């Protein structure tokens, strides 16, 4: 049972997760930012590792990835920075990024290293179910890492069931079929989609991401899921002067 499972066992609503890109705005900020987020009350975090061609991301996260790469961020550098993760941060941590950097690092080596520094789960948007199951799942499982799958309003029920079966911490619900950084429009069809998911009574908790920007959209998302993730909005804040001092206010503004 990793930290994620313990968290969901003890708390099942209004969970707040924050995403940020490692190496943005500068190297050696990852742990400082994570620590500040934990102090402000975030329940778990996603740390993005940058990729040159992030097709699922909008301009904000894309830009943060470009800057991070220019700064010299890589998986090797990230794992060095994360060496002191567990001496300073105790909430669950997920790493999120695209498959090619992992493939070059070596999937098995990546999983071992992630477990070693105290990471609890991985989100790889472009690693499909088939390839995960057939080629890589044993590396994740052997290292106690949860692999998180995404579900969109277009995902079929059959596929959601399959994802539920393969998941062992939570399922990442996309608010709509979109890239990151666009505002959540809670139309009837989106509401219907959330209701449809709720009615399926999945074994895993669900967390809503993409398009959550403020306390209102956060609260709304929590009506339908166990919590929500904020990404682009927080990454924008990291681009501002004096961002370290603004983190506390940001987090408390989302979940008063």
């Amino acid at each position: 049972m990793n930290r994620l499972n313990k968290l969901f066992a003890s708390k099942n609503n209004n969970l707040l997760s924050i995403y940020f890109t490692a190496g943005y705005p500068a190297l050696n900020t990852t742990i400082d930012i994570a620590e500040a987020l934990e102090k402000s009350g975030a329940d778990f975090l996603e740390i993005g590792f940058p990729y040159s061609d992030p097709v699922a991301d909008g301009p904000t996260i894309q830009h943060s990835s470009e800057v991070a790469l220019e700064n010299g961020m890589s998986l090797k550098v990230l794992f060095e920075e994360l060496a002191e993760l567990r001496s300073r941060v105790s909430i669950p941590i997920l790493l999120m990024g695209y498959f090619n950097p992992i493939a070059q690092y070596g999937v098995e080596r990546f999983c071992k290293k992630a477990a070693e520094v105290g990471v609890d789960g991985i989100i790889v948007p472009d690693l499909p179910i088939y390839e995960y199951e057939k080629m890589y799942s044993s590396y994740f499982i052997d290292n106690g890492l949860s692999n998180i799958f995404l579900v969109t309003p277009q995902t079929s029920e059959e596929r959601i069931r399959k994802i539920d079966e393969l998941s062992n911490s939570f399922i990442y619900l996309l608010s709509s079929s979109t890239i990151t950084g666009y505002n959540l429009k809670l139309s009837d069809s989106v509401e219907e989609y959330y209701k449809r998911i709720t009615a399926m009574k999945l074994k895993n908790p669900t967390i809503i991401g993409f398009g959550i920007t403020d306390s209102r959209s956060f609260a709304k998302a929590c009506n339908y899921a166990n919590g929500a993730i904020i990404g682009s909005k927080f990454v924008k804040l990291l681009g501002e002067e004096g961002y370290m001092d603004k983190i506390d206010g940001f987090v408390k503004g989302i979940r008063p």
Partner: protein
Amino acid sequence: MKIKVCGLKHPENINAVAALQPDYIGFILYGKSPRYMANLATDALQTIPASIQKTGVFVNESSENIDRLVTEYGFNAVQLHGDESPEFCAAFKGRVTVIKAFGINEDFDFEQLKDYANNVDLFLFDTKTKEYGGSGKTFDWAILDQYKLDIPFFLSGGVGLENIKEVKNITHSQFYGVDLNSRFENEPGLKNIEKLKEAFKIIKNKTQQMKYGVNEQGYYGDFGGAYIPEMLYPNVEELREQYLNIINDDDFKAEFDDLLKNYVGRPSPLYHAKRYSEKYGANIFFKREDLNHTGSHKINNAIGQILLAKRLGKKRIIAETGAGQHGVATATVCALMNIECVVYMGEIDMVRQAPNVARMKMLGAKVVPATSGSKTLKDATNEALRDWIGNPVDTHYIIGSVVGPYPYPDIVARFQSIISQETKAQLLEQTGKELPQYVMACVGGGSNAMGMFYHFIDDEAVKLVAVEAAGKGVNSGESAATTALGDEGVLHGSRTILMQTEDGQVVEPYSISAGLDYPGIGPQHAHLFKTGRGQYVSITDEEALQAGLLCCQLEGIIPAIETAHALAQLEKMKFEANDNVVICISGRGDKDLDTYINYFGY
């Protein structure tokens, strides 16, 4: 080959079979059959798509009853499976498709069919039994050779997964399709969908049997697959499920062939380049894709995909383009079909290729600059993928090369395979031999090369030569020689070979030719490279420009700079005097005049 599935009677099962898109579905209206659909409500067939012929199967029924049932159920075809006379059949001809069934055994006299020839549309040859079909037994198909009339026929009786491949080998010119029934059932009248799927796959899919082709999971050896975020999954899945059924459909083929012939101007000539042949000491043939409408091979794929998009019910087209050739081809077919078109193009490429931007706009397309990353082709591809994520239902993404998630590499390869298909026939006509010693083409993503190789890949005596762009030299740091510089990884949704850093970041390539300026190659090329089936080489900017000029002066053809890379490779080859060598002239050089002028100072 058409597919008819016969003997359905349960509504849910009917819908599941209809989803497989057979050409005909048969309903048995013969009371003694265990597949009699007696209890089916008359509106139960309304959900069947119009593309499927709903067929009522009757045995010695009265014409009044047939008339009534045709009206009630809305049948498009009747299959008369009893002892109906030619006159009886004639009464329905013209109103519905008339299929007359006969039980065949070794004593069957095909002469008796003559009287029916003018009164039916199709015959169906079933195994002769007392029960009027559904026996699950086959007859000796060799006897079909005795059938000489010009009415097409269905083959029925005992066709199952174990013998379906033999059915595919039937070469009779009137063989129209196959009737699937009792060997695909859980019980009489209840079809086994998984078994049917398997049969459809075998019947419809040619590549599955090709040695270097794609497998069911979308892989070519170690390469391919669909590494895509979940947001793209439904789009890609829809294509994967539908593309073979659509592009193997006879109506689709007819429309595609018509447009290739009358709009694109195919077949493109295979030209025996005599001065080249003299110079290089072999018989050099040019496959003239430069003579196509819009000036390159790109139009073949654009036509195919717009027809595919139409059949998928899409209302909007997106595409990426580097040099603008694929963008122009896509804008062209969108104008032709009156469909909204958005082309993503790197901001830098828009400046470099301004005339093509103007062309696309004149053709009614919206050109959107890709401003992220390096602002070139790979970023345009990213932007197109992002657009598709946000518009999953109404939009089709026309990828221009044999790259991207499965099934794109296979779709594009099939549409471009017309190049090698024609070449084989033309070579046979001109040289008396179908197979050359060499086929050669340039490779960026690799669509013209895959089209040029496609029908030769399994003929291992034919050497395949693929020419990449070395830019300023393979080791200059400014190159697009993917196989020389790349490693295995994932790019734009498929596992392939790509140029990347140690950390897995995609490296920006360089070539003077925008069409070859891509950091990866299609997964099938990666497979041909890794297995050694294809020889992958590279040519520098300078070598290409010199070869382009030589082609102007020796043959009076100004080639695209992409094509000039393939021509330049001739300098490095050692041929035997009798070798036949085909080189794909993928595009014309008009778009590259500025580059040629700047280099040679004309």
